[in-house]
């Protein structure tokens, strides 16, 4: 059984220190985990995929976090020319910054303004701007968010604590496997003297999905 890759050790002892210890399982696996192990081992043994590819992909998944998106947002707030290019070609600009894309998927950046608030959903499944935000939160993949984002976005946003004035237009973008969306939130008031790094630290995952605004930390005068 060579090259089986990520097979969990049944005794819970890690016999190759540092080799993805965090993704090894110690508990007796459930039915679907057993299926995952079996499918993966068979594909590796028969040469369809390599165990090392799975390891590398896990590393890549772990490396994709909302910090990538936040850095892009902060740069756009600081640099109008950058923002213009970002809105015109989200994927190209993200790639310039070293973000890797895994297939032909496009990245479309949607700018929030005083008049328009953007919200991102995937009603059919769970398409999400993974290259710049990592994996989606559980709620993004579940029925209530997917069902209601398109039919009553204002009420749904209010449940996130985001109450928008009635004269703000809400635009909901429904993602597909080929078109993923990232919201460029509004820069908060009172950040005129912030550095790009300080700005990036304010930008949350949920703000880039469009469910909350970017806000100054508690206690800081706005």
């Amino acid at each position, binding site marked *: *059984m*060579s*090259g*089986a890759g*990520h097979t*969990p*050790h*049944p005794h819970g002892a890690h*016999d*190759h220190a540092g*080799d993805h210890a965090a*993704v*090894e*399982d110690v508990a*007796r*696996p459930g039915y*679907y*985990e*057993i*299926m*995952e192990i*079996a*499918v*993966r*081992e*068979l*594909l590796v043994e*028969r040469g*369809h*995929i390599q*165990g090392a590819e*799975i390891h590398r*992909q*896990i590393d890549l*998944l772990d490396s994709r976090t909302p910090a990538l998106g936040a850095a892009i947002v902060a740069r756009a707030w600081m640099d109008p020319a950058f923002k213009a290019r970002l809105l015109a070609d989200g994927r190209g600009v993200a790639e310039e910054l070293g973000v890797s894309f*895994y*297939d032909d998927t496009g990245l479309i950046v949607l700018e929030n303004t005083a008049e328009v608030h953007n919200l991102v*959903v995937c*009603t*059919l*499944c*769970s398409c999400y701007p993974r290259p710049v935000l990592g*994996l989606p*939160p*559980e*709620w993004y*993949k579940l*029925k*209530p*968010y*997917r*069902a*209601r*984002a*398109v*039919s009553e976005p204002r009420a749904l946003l209010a*449940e*996130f604590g985001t109450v928008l004035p009635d004269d703000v237009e809400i635009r909901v973008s*429904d993602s597909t*496997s080929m078109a993923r969306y990232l919201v460029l939130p509004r820069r908060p008031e009172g950040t005129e003297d912030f550095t790009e790094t300080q700005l990036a630290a304010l930008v949350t995952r949920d703000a880039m999905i469009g469910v909350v605004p970017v806000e100054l930390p508690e206690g800081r005068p706005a």
Partner: protein
Amino acid sequence: MSEHLITRLPNDLGGQPSPPFERIDHELAPWEKRCHALADVLDFHKIINTEEKRRGVEALGSEIIGQLSYYERWIVVFANILFQKGILTPEDLALRMQEVERRWTPDGADDAGGASNG
């Protein structure tokens, strides 16, 4: 009245009546993360792409979709598609799943030492 059964696929949720929203999140279990990595690697090798995966989930039907978790659906779909493409057989998978399960039983534990030779 059966129209609702055919006018929408089970995963086409936009605008449907839904349970109340809850801001649920959790860290992925290690096997879920491996399952996600497997999906990406299968896509790279053009064995199963994202559209095939999504259609495969639709084909599970609403009862299975409703009862299985996100990555449970994925691994079942991968198995189904691999069967359809003749890359694995149901027997291959059943036998290997039995073997994997035995690694966690006391009698089979001794046989499992070589399994983590990764």
